[in-house]
């Protein structure tokens, strides 16, 4: 009974859809899903305290079974997500889909998602709290603080004080693991809505 109902349901004709490999919106959703899963696994072991962060990443990389692969997968997928969002925007640019009213809203959303993907990478790359991550955070904070009007405020939010410290690490972890994922989730839901309205390329 259930089997035949399932077979009938699976045999339903559907509208032809573009392949996942060509549909950058769905590809971005898939990559975001990979980020959520791998990020959640990493969060089981990660400790966002300066003294423990480096050690915990070392444990993930060296001791936890396949921890190195999960960490690398999280790292690689973050970069891939940024590239996919940038390609999505490039396609909207080339197809000039922003000339339609629905496309205009979709463009603004895609630019927002691009900035969010950059912010994800920026905050995530600081979390290992190794020498590279620490000094990269210092440079980024200095670059951001130079922006007129918003820069000082943004750098303070980013650092949690006048200089990069343990508070910075806690802030970056909170932004990376709590705030940005929800923003991205909301953005992707909105993108799905725009797509149904015909705004997304």
């Amino acid at each position, binding site marked *: 009974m259930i089997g035949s109902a399932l077979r009938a349901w*699976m045999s*339903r004709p559907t509208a032809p*859809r573009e392949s*996942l490999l060509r549909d950058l919106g769905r590809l971005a959703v898939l990559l975001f899903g990979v980020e959520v899963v791998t990020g959640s696994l990493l969060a089981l072991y990660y400790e966002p305290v300066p003294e423990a962060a480096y050690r915990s990443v070392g444990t993930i990389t060296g001791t936890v079974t396949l921890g190195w692969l999960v960490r690398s997968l999280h790292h690689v997928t973050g970069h891939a997500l940024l590239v996919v969002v940038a390609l999505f925007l490039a396609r909207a640019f080339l197809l000039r889909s922003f000339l339609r009213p629905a496309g205009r809203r979709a463009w603004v959303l895609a630019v927002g998602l691009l900035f969010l993907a950059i912010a994800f990478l920026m905050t995530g790359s600081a979390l290992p709290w190794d020498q590279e991550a620490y000094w990269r955070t210092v440079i980024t904070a200095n670059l951001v603080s130079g922006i007129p009007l918003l820069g000082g405020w943004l750098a303070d939010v980013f650092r949690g004080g006048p200089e990069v410290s343990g508070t910075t690490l806690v802030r970056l972890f909170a932004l990376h693991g709590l705030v940005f994922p929800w923003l991205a989730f909301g953005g992707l839901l909105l993108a799905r809505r725009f797509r149904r309205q015909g705004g997304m390329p």
Partner: protein
Amino acid sequence: MILRFTPGATAEQREAVAAAVRAAGSAVLATDGILSIDPPLDEGQAVPIAALPGVAALLARDPRAPTLRDQLLRTTGAACFVLGLLVLVAAHHPARLAGPADPLHTPGDLQPFWPLLAWYGVVNRAPGWVPVSLLPLLGGLVLLGWPLIARPLAERRPRWHTALGAAAVAAYLALALVEATR
């Protein structure tokens, strides 16, 4: 619902079948030997129409349309391919872990992460009178407001619009590359 004609069906036979379907209250769309019928005919209407000369078959659905099973298989296959590719790249380029953070020791080769490299390059190379700190703010605003700013250009001169975009991307990549190989 789909109606398929026999290969030898004449134009008159096709027209008579289409008229019979319309008379049954459904709309028809004719495409190379196939008649799409919407809404589908019920059994009482379908049997006499299927018996008309020139009709090869009357099918409940378009055999060319993908089913949910087809779509699921294709999507799962593509997702597995993407995941496999990511795992392969991740396995060949594992994320590094340098020594513990030391605020007292500044490393020699300081660089921000790659999306900010172009901006860092401009900051390092631009002459003093260039307001480099304004660039990211301006860049962000231009990108956000592009649909309004570039509307006349995109509508009247699409090739110039494309060339402008390509030039901007090339400049960004060149700056980032120069900074990365510094």
